[in-house]
C-alpha cells in the first residue's frame, strides 16, 4: 500500500464525511513517512479532542501502521470558519 497525501485525503473525506481535508507530507522533516493533516468534519461536534483524534486514528488505522509521525488538527465546520476569519 503506498500512502500518499492524496490517498489519505480521499479516505478521510470518504469515510468520515469530512468537509475539508488538508494533508501535508512532512516526510522530509522527519526522515521517515510523516504527515500533517487538518480535518474539518461536522461529526467532531460536541466531541472532546481526544475522541476526535481517536476517530481519525480509527479511520486511518491501516495507514498509521506504516506512518512514523502523524500530526492532526481536528475542527468542526464552525471552528474552521472562525479560524479562517482570524
Amino acid at each position: 500500500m503506498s500512502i500518499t497525501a492524496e490517498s489519505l485525503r480521499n479516505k478521510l473525506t470518504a469515510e468520515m464525511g469530512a468537509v475539508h481535508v488538508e494533508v501535508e507530507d512532512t516526510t522530509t522533516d522527519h526522515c521517515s513517512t510523516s504527515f500533517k493533516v487538518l480535518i474539518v468534519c461536522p461529526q467532531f461536534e460536541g466531541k472532546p479532542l481526544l475522541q476526535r483524534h481517536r476517530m481519525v486514528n480509527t479511520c486511518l488505522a491501516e495507514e498509521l501502521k506504516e506512518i512514523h509521525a502523524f500530526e492532526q488538527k481536528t475542527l468542526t465546520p464552525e471552528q474552521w470558519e472562525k479560524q479562517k476569519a482570524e
Partner: protein
Amino acid sequence: MNHLFRLSAGLLRSGTSGLYRRGPVPEGHVSLVVARLFSSEPENSELGQLIKKDKVVVFIKGTPAQPMCGFSNAVVQILRMHGVDDYASYNVLEDQDLRQGVKNFSNWPTIPQVYFNGEFVGGCDILLQMHQNGDLVEELKKLGIHSALLDANKDEQKK
C-alpha cells in the same frame, strides 16, 4: 497459556530483537517478559501500574534533559513552561517492548504520549492545543498543580 502467546505474538508483530526468546513456540517470537508485562488484564499490568504511580506521566523519545524527537521535545517544553518539572518520564527508545506496548495499551499509534492521573490525555498535538486554549492550566489545577503561567499572567496584570 495459549491466549497469552496469542496476545504477545500480536504485540510483537512489529518485531523485536528476540532478546527474550525462550525456545520454540507455535507463533514464533514470543517474549515471556512481554507476556508478564501485558497480562490479559491491562489495568493491572505493569504499564497500568506505571501510569498511576505519578500524577503526570509521559512516554517520550529521549529524556526531558535530552529529547530525541521534535514532538517529544514539544511535550517537555510545554510542561516546563507551566512549571511542571516533577513528572515521570519514560524513554521508549531504551526499550522496544515499552515502545510498542504503550501504543497498544493506549490504543494510540504514536509517541509521545501523556497521562494525567492514570488517564490518557493524548499526544503532542492535543497537549499543544490544550496549552493554547487554556485547558492545560485547568487540567493541571485538577491535579493539584499550580501552573507557572498563572503567576506569569498575574505579573502581567500588575504592570
